[in-house]
């Protein structure tokens, strides 16, 4: 047996650029590696479909399965099934529930909690430890949204008590929705010093609203630096974000999977680096492609 068959079931390709770019990068990396053959599936955001795809991959007896969980809890039983069938599972991008840790070989991806913490630290810095902010979170019920919010809130409370979160509302990863939410915040609060949003897409929506209302002096902090966020940062309108490369994410996942399949020892939590990006250090990063 010379080639390694890697099966991947992704969350929801096409719903945002990050996932799309991730998929392309994963396929490219797999094609570039003669030792790897990839079966690429997409769950379309539907847990039930993802479970079906996991079963299909188990049926096909691939050498290793990479899963980008549509939901961290719901996939645990099927991951356990794979484990029982002797197929190692690598979780990518967002973590599964703790109950499933026994059944996975490794996690490869960003640490969303840390990302939330980074954002909190940047917010603290931007406001000099003093001020009132609002938070626009991702789609309710999704792991990434929950983890980033948790990391942000906990860190802020712990290390920056002078900054108060006035209110949190979901922006559903949608720029227009977030723009609407921000417009309402602006009506409601005369004094907003900073905005934390679960990703830059929503952050730019919030920025749009603030610019339209002529409200200056608000520090915008996001996560998952998008091209629009990067550009706004270049214009000095956006304070900072967390740099997370889908290409890195994909490569990391594939490398972990390959290593697992070859029986190498890999760290259980194989985080890849997602550094802070701000107006002052943005030159060190290339503009995101999405």
């Amino acid at each position: 047996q010379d080639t390694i068959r890697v099966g991947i079931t992704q969350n929801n390709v096409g719903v945002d650029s990050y996932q799309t770019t991730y998929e392309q990068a994963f396929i490219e990396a797999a094609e570039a590696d003669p030792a790897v053959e990839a079966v690429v599936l997409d769950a379309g955001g539907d847990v039930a479909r993802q479970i079906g795809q996991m079963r299909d991959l188990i049926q096909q007896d691939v050498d290793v399965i990479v899963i980008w969980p549509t939901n961290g809890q719901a996939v645990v039983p099927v991951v356990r099934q794979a484990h029982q069938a002797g197929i190692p599972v690598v979780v990518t991008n967002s973590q599964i529930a703790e109950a499933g840790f026994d059944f996975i070989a490794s996690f490869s991806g960003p640490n969303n909690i840390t990302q939330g913490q980074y954002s909190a630290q940047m917010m603290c810095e931007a406001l000099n430890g003093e001020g009132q902010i609002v938070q626009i979170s991702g789609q309710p019920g999704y792991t990434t949204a929950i983890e980033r919010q948790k990391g942000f809130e906990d860190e802020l409370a712990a290390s920056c008590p002078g900054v108060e979160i006035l209110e949190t509302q979901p922006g559903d990863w949608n720029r227009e929705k977030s723009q609407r939410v921000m417009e309402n915040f602006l009506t409601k609060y005369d004094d907003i010093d900073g905005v934390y949003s679960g990703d830059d897409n929503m952050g730019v929506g919030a920025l749009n609203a603030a610019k339209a209302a002529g409200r200056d002096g608000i520090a915008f902090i996001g996560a998952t630096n998008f091209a629009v966020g990067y550009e706004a940062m270049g214009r000095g309108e956006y304070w900072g974000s967390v740099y997370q490369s889908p290409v890195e994410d994909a490569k990391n996942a594939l490398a972990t999977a390959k290593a697992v399949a070859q029986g190498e020892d890999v760290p259980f939590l194989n985080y890849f680096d997602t550094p802070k990006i701000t107006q002052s250090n943005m030159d060190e990063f290339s503009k995101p492609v999405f």
Partner: protein
Amino acid sequence: MTKLDIQSGQAAPRLGVPDRDALRETLQKQGILIAFALFLVGFSLMSDRFASWDNVSTVFRQVSIIGTMALGVTVVVITGNLDLSVGSLLSFATVLVVDLHDQIGPAPAILVMFAATLLIGCVNGLLVGYGRLNSLIVTLGMLSAIQGLTLIYSGGQNVDIADQEGTWFAVFGRGFLLGLAVPTLIFLGLAVAFHVMLTRTSFGRRVFAVGGNPTASAFSGVRRARVVFSAYVLSAFTTACAAVILGSRVMGSQNNVGQGYELLVLSGVILGGASLLGGSGSIPKTVIGVLILGFIQNGLLLMGYPYYAQWLVTWVVIILAVWLDVASKRGAFFTRTS
């Protein structure tokens, strides 16, 4: 001839006080307006920001996208059909216009987008109008197909307008005219146009006739297929207009920006009293329906409830609003059905 018990005297004149009746009739039909007013008062009492000019104009601006789409959908619903494809059509149109903006310039981008969107409207119209296919499934199929087309077109990537400050395209979503936001003006302007079309033109009359009784309209010489076809083209048209507002407002687009809008738009239309069975509906009430949706969201946000509590309140408010409407028409709060 034996008369058993003929009543004596002339028949009393019939009770007919047309003016008062007409007034009562008009008032009775405005249950939804009353409901709307009640909510506005309620929200104003609970949040001092609510009744400000700033806030009201913000809400108008916010509902203008859904509202504009609802105008076309109202026409479709009056013909007795559904259009569930508008949500993904909005995504398609917005992605297209934003993406083309940087490639061929704003004016050509708008033109091409309108052409493509209207073309899809024509497909809907051909299938439901001339093909007489079930509109629910046709437009749901189209919802899926258009979503796929959008993703294929964009390759799944977000699209953005690079130069956001320098383009006149910004005026549609961000501009102001005479102190009013351009999106609001587009929405209300189109609403007036659609209202006039539905009430003052023979086309409008045909729309109501086809929805009210397709067979009888056909017997009367109304071309059902043509009317339904036109309704879908109009729906695509308003969606294209909404896409211009959306694209310009956000200066970018995700592939799924319109996801779920179909039901939101439809709720606005139905809140306004249009019947899914066709034959009834009105533009002013659709506008009110959409405004109710917009003000609920805005009002609840201003009051700062967590989002799921907002959903619960929305549940209650939607049903209460329509209940008030049907109860006022019926003249009783509860039905007599056993």
